[in-house]
């Protein structure tokens, strides 16, 4: 067993884990962050996407021990004071989910995308989400939701 300390959604967690434990299993089974899901287990689908030190990663392809001393944000850590993150609200408003299984990872990747490119074209949104698979929506409303967040934050920027 190895002792690790990871800050998860702002809370410092210290635990003894087996080195072979995947970050996604640590988050779900040890910390209880079941908002992060496992879709494929082959690192293709992106459902398990979280932020590690502010950058998106597939948590099924990272060991928990690799996160020792680092910061993780999951879908459960996006909302503040009970208010949805703008990306969560936009997914809701634009009907960007059906079964919802891809949604936690899709939202985490969409947030990362806008951080790196605040004003993406439709093409750039689609390419930026290429590591996240959705079996239900056909992606159309997901792209719309991300574009809506980009548009509202750029109008906010220009009005200040």
């Amino acid at each position, binding site marked *: 067993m*190895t002792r690790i300390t990871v800050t998860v959604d702002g809370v410092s967690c210290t635990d003894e884990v*087996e*080195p*072979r*434990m*995947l970050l996604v*299993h640590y988050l779900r089974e040890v910390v209880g962050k079941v908002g992060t899901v496992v879709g494929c*287990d*082959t*690192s*293709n689908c*992106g459902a398990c*996407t979280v932020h*590690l030190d502010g*950058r*998106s*990663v*597939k948590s099924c*392809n*990272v*060991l928990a*021990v*690799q996160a*020792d001393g680092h910061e993780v944000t999951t879908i459960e850590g996006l909302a503040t004071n009970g208010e949805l993150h703008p990306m969560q609200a936009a997914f809701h408003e634009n009907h960007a989910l059906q079964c919802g299984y891809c949604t936690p990872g899709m939202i985490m*990747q969409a947030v*990362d*995308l806008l951080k*790196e490119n605040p004003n993406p074209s439709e093409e750039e949104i*689609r*390419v*930026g989400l*290429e*590591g*996240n698979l959705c079996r239900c929506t056909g992606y159309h409303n997901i792209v719309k939701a991300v574009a809506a967040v980009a548009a509202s934050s750029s109008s906010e920027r220009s009005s200040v």
Partner: protein
Amino acid sequence: MIPASFDYLAPTSVEEALSVLAEAGDDAKVLAGGQSLLPILRMRLNAPEKVVDLGRIEALRGVRDGGDHLAIGAMTPYSDVVANDLVREHAGLLARAVETVADPQIRHRGTLGGALVHADPAGDVGAPVLALDATMVVVGPGGERTVPATEFFHDLFETAVGDGELLTEIRIPKHTGWGSAYEKFVRVSHQWSIVAVAATVRVEGGSIAEARVGLTNMGNTPLRATAVEQALVGSSASGLADACAAAAEGTNPPSDLNGDADYRRHLATVLTRRAVQKAMEG
């Protein structure tokens, strides 16, 4: 899927990593970004007793200006390579190829060095590194040595890096002012290259003064299309097709569900022409 049990070691310097590896012998595996190794361990295609994580060795990360070349630390993540201004200015071909690898999440974790040592013939970093005449710095119990890219790739998943050794740095001669393009052929987004071509050219007065062309997935290792490189010298944009016709010469492409060897040979000539054309435009 969960890997078999292993002991985890996280050295903080290259010296410490080498001594940990020497002590562990055959039963140790080096972990870089884990984007190839962790799937392998999860599928239990390999079950090392010890895993030596290079992730805490800060000295192996980052891009340094070495005067006539760039020195890229083996543990520099793909996303940092793509975003780096020095790389974009002096080794544009590398940025063009790396930005096509996998997806953003995997590019945040996967490293340039890890991908080179993994040496998957369909991987996207071998061809540009070969075309840019890079030199690899390898350290082991016997000290440090440099290996030219032409001698680095030995076979499928086999390189000049032996057991107990580490790739520490990739040195890329500056190709300032060269245009470049990476033409990757896939059927769907987020797929490995069926074939890809890395081309970089120096244009003088509208025609090609120098050209470098690397091929992905046209054999067990990345390859240089030297016949094309020579034929391109003096070509203008209108005369590319003839010069690129020899792109598949001396290659040994695989046949699989995505296409047979003849199909890949044809693709190589078409993609080479497209890549060189784009590279001439900038």
